[in-house]
């Protein structure tokens, strides 16, 4: 079965629909599926809900879909660095479900693992706990958080083979594996598709069972905060 598609638009064809819940990988602008996000913008699908740790910046990442008002709701842990997001949120155009970062990652992982809910002590005693079931084990309260079952997952990896086995690079792995796991359909964009058999089976970061469609492309990989130190004697 062929999983390889010519480009992002073709990979989204027949999958992307208005109103769907999309889980997206990435942390800040690191390891985001930038080609698929651009293709979603060009497709014009609207009323989308995104489960994504961040919302990008105004002109990159999910930010480009906020500009075109294609996003109805964000499920995120941190949405700073995005002026248009704030404007839409404060004017009531955009819904926002704040989820602590680890809870968001686990909600995706749980959804992908067929677990509809789990208890965590993260957020106990805070606004995050409001309206949620509380259970006590050994004197400690835990709150119920629900798994995320996304209609579509869009992720970015470094390399894929033709069967969808994935390798990520450094901290660009971040939310990509749990996001991939929780999608009914998962589309991955990679920097390189390598021949099946050339990846070490002991070093696959995400097995191809989670991946349905693959595209290869060139990535801008924008840096959000360029920080450096000076060389000795420079």
């Amino acid at each position, binding site marked *: 079965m062929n999983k390889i598609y010519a480009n992002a638009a073709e990979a989204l064809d027949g999958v992307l629909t208005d109103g769907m819940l999309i889980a997206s990988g990435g942390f800040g602008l690191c390891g985001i599926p930038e080609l698929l996000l651009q293709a979603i913008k060009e497709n014009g699908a609207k009323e989308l809900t995104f489960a994504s740790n961040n919302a990008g910046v105004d002109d990159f990442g999910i930010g480009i879909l906020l500009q075109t008002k294609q996003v109805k709701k964000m499920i995120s842990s941190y949405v700073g660095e995005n002026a248009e997001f704030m404007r839409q949120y404060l004017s009531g155009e955009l819904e926002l479900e704040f989820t602590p970062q680890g809870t968001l990652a686990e909600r995706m992982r749980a959804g992908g693992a067929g677990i509809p809910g789990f208890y965590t002590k993260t957020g106990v005693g805070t606004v995050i706990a409001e309206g949620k079931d509380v259970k006590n084990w050994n004197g400690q309260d835990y709150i119920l958080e629900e798994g995320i079952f996304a209609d579509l997952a869009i992720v970015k990896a470094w390399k894929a083979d033709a069967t969808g086995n994935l390798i990520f690079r450094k901290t660009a792995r971040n939310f990509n594996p749990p996001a991939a796991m929780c999608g009914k359909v998962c589309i991955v964009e990679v920097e390189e598709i390598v021949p099946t058999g050339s990846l070490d089976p002991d070093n696959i970061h995400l097995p191809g069972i989670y991946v349905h469609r693959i595209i290869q492309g060139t990535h801008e990989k924008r840096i959000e905060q360029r*920080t450096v130190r000076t060389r000795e004697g420079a």
Partner: protein
Amino acid sequence: MWDRNQMAARAAQELEDGMYVNLGIGIPTLVANYVGDKDITLQSENGMLGMGPFPFEGDEDPDLINAGKQTITEMDRTAYFDSATSFAMIRGGKIAAAILGAMEVSETGDLANWMIPGKLIKGMGGAMDLVAGVGRVIVVMDHANKHGESKVLKACTLPLTGKGVVDRIITNLGVLDVVEGGLRIVECAEGVTEEELRAATQATLV
């Protein structure tokens, strides 16, 4: 009174050889400069253990950033993993300590450091998971806000990041521990008397 670097140096004394530690943004980041010979492994919650210093100019890698989205470097011991694994080790109590900044801390160890109602809301990021999960939470912050009011309170006024989660508070005026019935003075900063520390603190001191 301690400056930012002296507060960071004091916080570094809390760390013991072999610890895995998560440092927050701001003064906590400076703590890395004062660990000396101690074998400390820094965690970055976006998926890395063994966080190295900023890269030299020209060596920046867009695939290698810390939780503050700054470019960083790896070390010999570095391991990378996904966000679910990262927070599994945080929630599972494997990270010995987190050193974090704060807007307010209460005498019962409540911490507020993620939102001010009516102001720009950015989100809690990983702060709620960290304070709920790590072995020890150490807050490093100025003792008073910019209006001169104590940030060490009987009860927090801002929305909480965690309830009863703080173990130790290090400010420019001294070190306080959260204990039964209130806060206990551990030490005063250089040039600060116990009376001055008491006068600057709204919380109950025992």
